[in-house]
């Protein structure tokens, strides 16, 4: 589904990703862990198409296509979804309008009939239940005045509405209490199918108790320095990131 080959990325002339290789197959869950500043969000944003990150070499193939050639909106419509680490507030853009527009853009792309307001609302209410979303949140502007936890839930709520093929969750667990974490994990698991895949970016192993990965990668200083099964997450939790740092000569 996704193949990243020897990817180098810079921002403002500073090299951040230094040769990433990654292969994600349908049905898989990959966890990417690593200390702060190692480049996890950069990788996630490059996949979503953020322009300020400059790919200096390497390639990304998504479903047989050169992903780097696609605009962010086209990537989204082809099934890539980024749950942002820091979802931005957009005062004045009502949540409902935003969600309806996004869903209908996806439907149009797939050649399906656009939802009417009524149809959309009905569908939205169902997904709200799945994530135990407070209905009043969808009456506000996008993310405006949402708590940290509500913002994260809102990301997964959008994922539930858009049903991507490849979900990339960037630190979706940070800022969530244990109940919210369980709800979010439940939401993510409920959306799983044998055809779609998830990349979970996280700092802690906690979330991985609920969303169990097939592969765990450690990203450090712009490189994947370790890849293994889910046991790697536990090992990391035990030994801490200093272990990785020492192994990599810091």
């Amino acid at each position: 589904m996704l193949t990243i080959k020897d990817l180098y990325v810079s921002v403002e002339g500073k090299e951040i990703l230094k040769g990433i290789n990654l292969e994600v197959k349908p049905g898989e869950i990959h966890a990417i862990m690593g200390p702060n500043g190692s480049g996890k969000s950069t990788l996630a944003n490059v996949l979503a198409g953020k322009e300020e990150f400059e790919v200096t070499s390497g390639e990304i193939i998504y479903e047989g296509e050169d992903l780097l050639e696609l605009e962010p909106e086209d990537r989204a419509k082809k099934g890539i979804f980024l749950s942002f680490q820091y979802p931005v507030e957009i005062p004045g853009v009502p949540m409902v309008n935003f969600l309806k527009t996004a869903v209908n853009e996806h439907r149009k792309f797939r050649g399906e009939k656009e939802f009417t307001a009524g149809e959309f609302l009905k569908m939205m209410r169902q997904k709200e239940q799945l994530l135990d979303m407070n209905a009043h949140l969808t009456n506000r502007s996008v993310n405006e005045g949402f708590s940290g936890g509500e913002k994260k839930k809102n990301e997964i709520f959008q994922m539930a509405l858009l049903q991507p093929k490849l979900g990339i969750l960037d630190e979706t667990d940070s800022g969530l209490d244990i109940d919210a974490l369980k709800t979010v994990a439940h939401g993510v698991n409920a959306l799983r199918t044998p055809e779609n895949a998830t990349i979970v970016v996280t700092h802690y192993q906690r979330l991985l108790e609920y969303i169990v990965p097939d592969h765990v990668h450690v990203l450090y200083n712009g490189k994947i320095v370790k890849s293994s099964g889910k046991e790697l997450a536990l090992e990391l939790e035990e030994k801490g990131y200093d272990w990785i740092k020492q192994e990599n000569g810091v």
Partner: protein
Amino acid sequence: MSVLVEKADLSLKYTGHYNDVKDLLTEGSSDILNSKRNKAFQDFVMQGIPTRKNENYKYTNLQPQFSPDYKFIHQREKTELDLNQAFRCDVPQLDTHLAFIFNGWYYEENRSVGQLPEGVILESLEKIAIEKPELLEKYAQLANTEEDPLVALNTTFAKDGYFLYVPKNTKIEKPIQLINFLQADKDAFSTQRNFVYIEEGADVKMIMCDHTLNLNSYLSNSVTEIFLGANAHLEYYSLQNQHNKTTSLNSVFIHQEKDSTATTLNSSLHGGLIRNNLKFILNGENAEANLFGMAFIDRKQHVDNFTQVIHAKPNCMSNQVYKNVLDDESTGAFAGRIHVVRDAQKTNAFQRNNNLLLTDSATMQTKPQLIIDADDVKCSHGATVGQIDEEALFYLRARGIDDKKARLMMMNAFAHEVIQQIKVEPLRDRIDELVDKRLKGEVARCHECAYNCEC
């Protein structure tokens, strides 16, 4: 020819014109209007057409606007068009007391005003000034001819406009809608003078719509004086939708007594050069003034809003929010002056001006000015000039919304803060739609335009 001579020539043109038409101006007009002309003319001669040296007109060069040879409309002209027929407001459910003003003159055959509550008068200013001069005792008291040359010129030429009187404790449920049309067989200069007297405890909503009906160039110079009694309430919406060969100069003065509230909301959708002067005098405790404005301009359009709020008594509140979206090479200006006089303690005065520049060649000048002579006051002002928030744009695009649509959503969001202040719901929905069309680059006119004014 030096600039100085040219400038003097320009003012001379208008002073010369006054001498030519003096008799025409006084003819058929009332003593009260005529009695102000000479002094107003002297004040105009002293000030001349404003140049950018005039601090209040620093960002708007009016010299080129006053240069063309306009036809002056100093007498009521018969219109061939029956405005009642020609115009049907296409805002659904917008049920109003409707009256037309044609080239600055209150239309004689208004038939859509409908039944006004007892004692309310909506009429031609010229007529009231002759028949009931006692209602115009305060004429020209707010609009000071020494302070502004446009006001001086208006007072010199003033013959007609609308007059509105709302007696004590009268609430008018339906909005009063006044539609200004400009239509002449040549480029024309129109003068309009309005007077509104709202007594204690009365409650009124007004909607002003400005339109041009053909492609000639126009300069419209209007002055409106509004007196608001104690505990009276006013909502005043103005929708500027004229073509790009129009110069629209508007000076609105609002005088408030205690416990009164006034909200003005100005929406500039189209127009060549627009200058709005808005001056509030809060002259009684607990008076509240809200000043909202939004403008959407492109090409070489220019919009300049100049507000002044004078807190003359303690415990008053004023709140200003002006927002502009500027495209192409358009230029905009906002200058807001808040003056808290001595002893106007416990004043709350807020002001904000946010601007969205869609291109690198659009420019915006913004200048707050606080003059505070009391010590116990809360004042704040803030201005931003920026481009669309790239992070928010990316967020929308990452959800599958294309760049163009995402930008449109953000621009609508930007304007939304002002639009939501419109309390007349069908008007709000309609303006929402017009703004959306305007931002999409479609021509947004507020009625089915059968007049080919496609610029």
